[in-house]
Every structure is written in C-alpha cells, then in structure tokens.
C-alpha cells in the first residue's frame, strides 16, 4: 500500500482531523496525538502492510522556533513488500511525558524505547522492562534534554580517588 492510500485509509478510520500530514523533501510524515498513536501504528501494521519498525527516536524541541510541544517521538515504518516508508510523529509534554509502548506490535521497539527513555525521560506506558540502557542505573538526569548542561552536573567527577600509596 502506498503512502497516499495509507493516509486515506487512516483518515477514513480516525477522521480527517486526527491525521495531519507534512512533507519535507521525500520525507512524508503523519502527525497524530499520543492518544491515537498506538491505534494508528496498529492500523498501519495490520491493514496497510507497514510491517517493519525501522526507527524509533525522539527530539527535544525546547527553544526550537515555532515549536508548540516539547518532545517529538517518531516512528519510521517500512513496508517490506514494496519498500514504502512512512513516518509517524507524536508529541509529549512536561511534566511526565508519556506515550504508549509499541512493544506489543514490534518486539524490536524494546531497546529503542529504553534508549528514548534513558536520554529524554519519555515514559513508554506498557513497556515490560523500562529501565536505563546506556547510562548507569544510578544516573538521575536525562542527558539529551536541551536544558541539561553539556558538561553534566558533576557526574563525571563523582568517584573515589585512588592515590599511588594506597593502591
């Protein structure tokens, strides 16, 4: 199923207001709310043939020109039969940014959702094992947020010092 057919099917099912589309070069995106994103992705997977989740990532739009929401989370889907691609994008906001987990649709979303949670603090509701994946467990901040200082808050210096005499 092509992009246009998929969009018309989504509009038919969820209503034209719930499905907004934007384009940038060959990058065709569908913007949906966090309440309908799971149903849209499920429809794209089961009915439209977009069976592979190629990418799941996020961005922080703090201080971004003309941005209305803070966290953007996107899903890049690929139709393995014809190679068509589609980007589904949703937004979450402070406090407690949360989106539904798509682990039940794609098992491959497991680590990608954990990475987004680790870096941005976006909670994926329904994820079976949502914990940090790259940063150590005792790390408290979300380092890819724009309001986190690039040099951190002293985490890199919080270790015991071993002198030569005692080692």
């Amino acid at each position, binding site marked *: 199923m092509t992009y246009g057919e998929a969009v018309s099917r989504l509009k038919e099912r969820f209503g034209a207001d719930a499905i907004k589309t934007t384009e940038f070069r060959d990058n065709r995106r569908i913007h949906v709310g966090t309440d309908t994103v799971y149903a849209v992705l499920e429809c794209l997977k089961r009915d439209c043939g977009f069976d592979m989740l190629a990418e799941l990532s996020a961005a922080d739009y703090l201080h971004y020109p003309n941005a209305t929401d803070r966290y953007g989370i996107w899903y890049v889907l690929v139709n393995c039969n014809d190679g068509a691609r589609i980007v589904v994008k949703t937004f979450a906001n402070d406090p407690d940014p949360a989106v539904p987990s798509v682990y039940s649709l794609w098992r491959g979303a497991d680590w990608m959702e954990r990475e987004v949670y680790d870096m941005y603090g976006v909670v994926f509701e329904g994820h079976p094992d949502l914990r940090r994946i790259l940063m150590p467990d005792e790390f408290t901040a979300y380092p890819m947020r724009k309001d986190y200082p690039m040099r951190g808050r002293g985490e890199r*210096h919080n270790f015991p010092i071993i002198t030569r005499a005692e080692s």
Partner: protein
Amino acid sequence: MAVGPSDSVIVTKLDLLANWVRKNSLWPMPFATACCGIELMATGASRHDIARFGAEAMRFSPRQCDLMIVAGRVVMKMLPVLQRIWLQMPEPKWCISMGACASSGGVFDTYAVVQGIDRFIPVDIYVPGCPPRPEQLLQSVIDLQAVIQRTGTITGAEFRARTRSEAPQTLALDITGADRLVAPGNYQSATRLQK
C-alpha cells in the same frame, strides 16, 4: 696477597639490580577503549615491535601485568572498572596514560567522559597525541624505563611516598552555575558556556 673481586663478579646495589630486571620486563595490560587501542596494537605488531624494549608480553589479565596502558577515552560508566583492574594488578606496577582522551578527556568535554584518568588513578607517563603514533608509545616505554631505573627501589618506597592525588585540582574550565549552551561556541576561550 690482596683478595678482591675477580673479573667475573660485579658489585652493585640491590635496588639497581631490581630496577634493571623490572624495567626490561614490563608486561603491559592493554586497557584499550578507543582508537588509541589500534595504535597500541600497531605498537605490538612486527613493524614497530615493542618486544625490542622487553614489553611484548601483553596479558589480558591484570593479575599477570605490571604496566597498565590506558588507551582511549574512559567514560563514567567505565571508570569503576578501570579502578578495579588497577587495584587487581600486583606490585610493582606503573600506568601509562596514552592519548589526549585518557590524559585530559580530549575533545570529549561532555557529561559522560572523565576529564583525565589521573583524577582517579595514579599515572606515571602521559603520551600526547590523538592518537599517538607507535613511536611515541615506544618513547613512553623508554622514558618509563628511565624512571624505573632512576627512582625504583626494591621495597617500593617511591610508591608509598605518593600519598596525594597528582591530578590538577580543579578543571581548567569548570562547570559554572549558569551553564547554558550557546552555538556555535566561543572558540577563543575554548568553552561553550555562556557568561
């Protein structure tokens, strides 16, 4: 008839003998975390051949080593491992900090990267470069041999004298209160913090 040592006997200090033995049989522990590790491998390979300086026996167990070569950046998640490996090495032991990242954090002035391993473990020789050429690493081994020959004692007294951290006390560019990012950064003062 005077009785003296014959030509087949030499008299020396025990320290000198121990130093001579130790410096020519360094067993490196390659702690290679980044591209410096590739240069370290090249140093061990036939073209540069660290065996010419008696340091070819690289072991991947800290229990069998007495020279730790930290090659590459060390992140905050890796540092407890580095400290543990250092403590597991038997005495006498030395440490070479290879490359800009291990010595100072290099270009990775970020929240995760330790700004110089000498803040947390003792370092004997620093090798500049990004990454250093194998010749530089060989020179650091030669320099370390000179240090061992000059300062070494059989009892390890020179180690026990180093009771304080030898790192710079504060970061040259420390985190300030208003640590806001600016782009593309102030390259004059090499900081990205806004005043």
